[in-house]
């Protein structure tokens, strides 16, 4: 593998997103949402203004779990199929570059853009709030930012996989939307449904493991279990064994969610 080829492709993808202000727009969306949540998140309880970092992060997690997978899927779904459909793929592949280098470059460039938006957007909020945050709170907030980046990387990897598997852009976009619905909306409902139908008698032991099959859930657990105060806010805490809640284990699972779809994509693209 020649890293310079990967860097050339990645550089183009990244600068394309900087130049067309994609990065700026997404970062602004994150900043605005995070500020609104930090100040008005507790409005239902009859109070406005920044309350605690735990409550803010819990609210942000609920937002990010919808938003980031959607943004990542939209960003990546046409990475390969778009080039194929426009007709620029043949020229690209006639260059001294392997298909793996091309996919990896595309992924890293897009991942860089998404990570940059996430860190810049939420980082700005951390700056705004810095007066009210102690070191421990900052640590939690950075954990939230890092896990948000990982969540984006995982769904971007899934999106790039779709862009290789799909025959055209229309199908790729349909699959991306279906994937968002499945992981973000349907998956938890199915698990809950299964638990309720069986009266909780079966599956209780494997339930936590099943949650690892959804990167969005991994992200949720990663954030809840690093915040002792918030654990009890979620019913999940009662079914999720602490042994599985190790941040390093959850991070490893997330890295797996990044590597596996990319692996499938490059295997399929190479055929």
């Amino acid at each position, binding site marked *: 593998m020649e890293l310079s080829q990967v860097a050339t492709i990645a550089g183009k993808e990244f600068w394309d997103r900087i130049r067309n202000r994609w990065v700026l727009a997404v970062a602004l969306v994150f900043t605005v949402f995070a500020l609104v949540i930090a100040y008005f998140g507790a409005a239902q309880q009859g109070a406005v203004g920044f309350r605690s970092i735990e409550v803010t992060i819990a609210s942000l997690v609920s937002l990010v779990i919808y938003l980031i997978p959607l943004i990542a899927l939209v960003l990546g779904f046409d990475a390969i199929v778009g080039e194929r459909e426009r007709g*620029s793929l043949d*020229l690209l592949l*006639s*260059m*001294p570059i392997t298909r793996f280098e091309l996919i990896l470059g595309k992924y890293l460039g897009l991942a860089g853009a998404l990570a940059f938006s996430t860190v810049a957007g939420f980082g700005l909020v951390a700056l705004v709030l810095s007066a009210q945050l102690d070191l421990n709170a900052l640590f939690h907030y950075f954990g939230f930012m890092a896990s948000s980046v990982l969540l984006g990387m995982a769904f971007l990897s899934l999106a790039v996989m779709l862009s290789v598997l799909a025959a055209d852009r229309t199908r790729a976009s349909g699959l991306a939307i279906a994937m968002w619905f499945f992981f973000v909306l349907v998956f938890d409902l199915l698990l809950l449904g299964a638990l309720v139908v069986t009266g909780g008698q079966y599956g209780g032991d494997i339930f936590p493991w099943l949650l690892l099959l959804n990167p969005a859930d991994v992200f949720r657990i990663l954030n809840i279990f690093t915040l002792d105060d918030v654990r009890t806010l979620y019913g999940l805490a009662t079914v999720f064994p602490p042994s599985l809640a190790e941040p390093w284990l959850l991070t490893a699972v997330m890295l797996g969610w990044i590597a596996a779809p990319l692996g499938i994509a490059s295997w399929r693209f190479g055929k």
Partner: protein
Amino acid sequence: MESTIQAAAEAPASAGAVVRVRGASKHYGAVRAVDGVDLAVQRGELFGLIGHNGAGKSTLFKMMLGLIPATAGEIAIDGAPVSGSGFRAVRRKIGYLPENVVLYDNLTGLETLHFFAKLKSVPAAGCGALLERVGLAHAAGRRVREYSKGMRQRLGFAQALLGRPQILFLDEPTTGLDPEAIREFYVILRGLRAEGVTVIITSHILAEIQERVDRLAIMAAGKVQALGTVQALREAMDLPLWFDVRVADSDFTAVRDALGSLPVAAIEAHDGRVAVQVRRESKMAVFAALATLGERVLDLHVREPSLEDVFFGFSD
């Protein structure tokens, strides 16, 4: 037609070939897109590949570039297989202009060349001169989005010339160019050939290719049906020639009868013109007859069969 027509006098020894295709086939299920093609293109040759849509020439083109793996057979460029571990070295010797080239709308002309130069490990310094060479220096800083079809084609051509490739693969390169630009394009090609660059070109404008290629291959149904110089193919096909003779009205009948007595395949006579179609073997007999007519012949024009005639001879 069962066997490939090879123009024997021009058939090269495959030893010195820079592009060598041996028994290359590409099957999609039962469809034989390319079916047992053998080709050898010599260094510095301007080689044409023609055929109807679906004849298999684009597939063969992509196989030669290593974009599509062959079902069977071997393809080597400069002695190295186009796929496999040595592909990178092969790719660095190649320039490719795809049919209806698509570039990136959001980049400027110069940025486009810089991007591809990086992929080819070519210094970016030469990109400006390359734009100059294809007549795009004035538009170097404009985005490709604002380029006309012809300008995109020129930029695509400049991209193919990056890094002084030894072999150029040009798929319908003159599409979208005006006649003046086509002329300039072939001036550049001739310059490249003089430098020893091998050029493989496809075109659907047969008259355009006919004037310019050293040799050509005619493809139909996935096979090379004919291979050789245009002249050799005409001779091998034994297509008839036309003699157009202009005569004074007073001599019309005499000339018509004199030519009509020869073994001609067809005769058309009207309005002071007598046209006869003859087989190549009768060519000199017609000249002899015309010589005896002396000054009764006001003007003479001999029409060789065109590449279209050759081409459609294989398509029928």
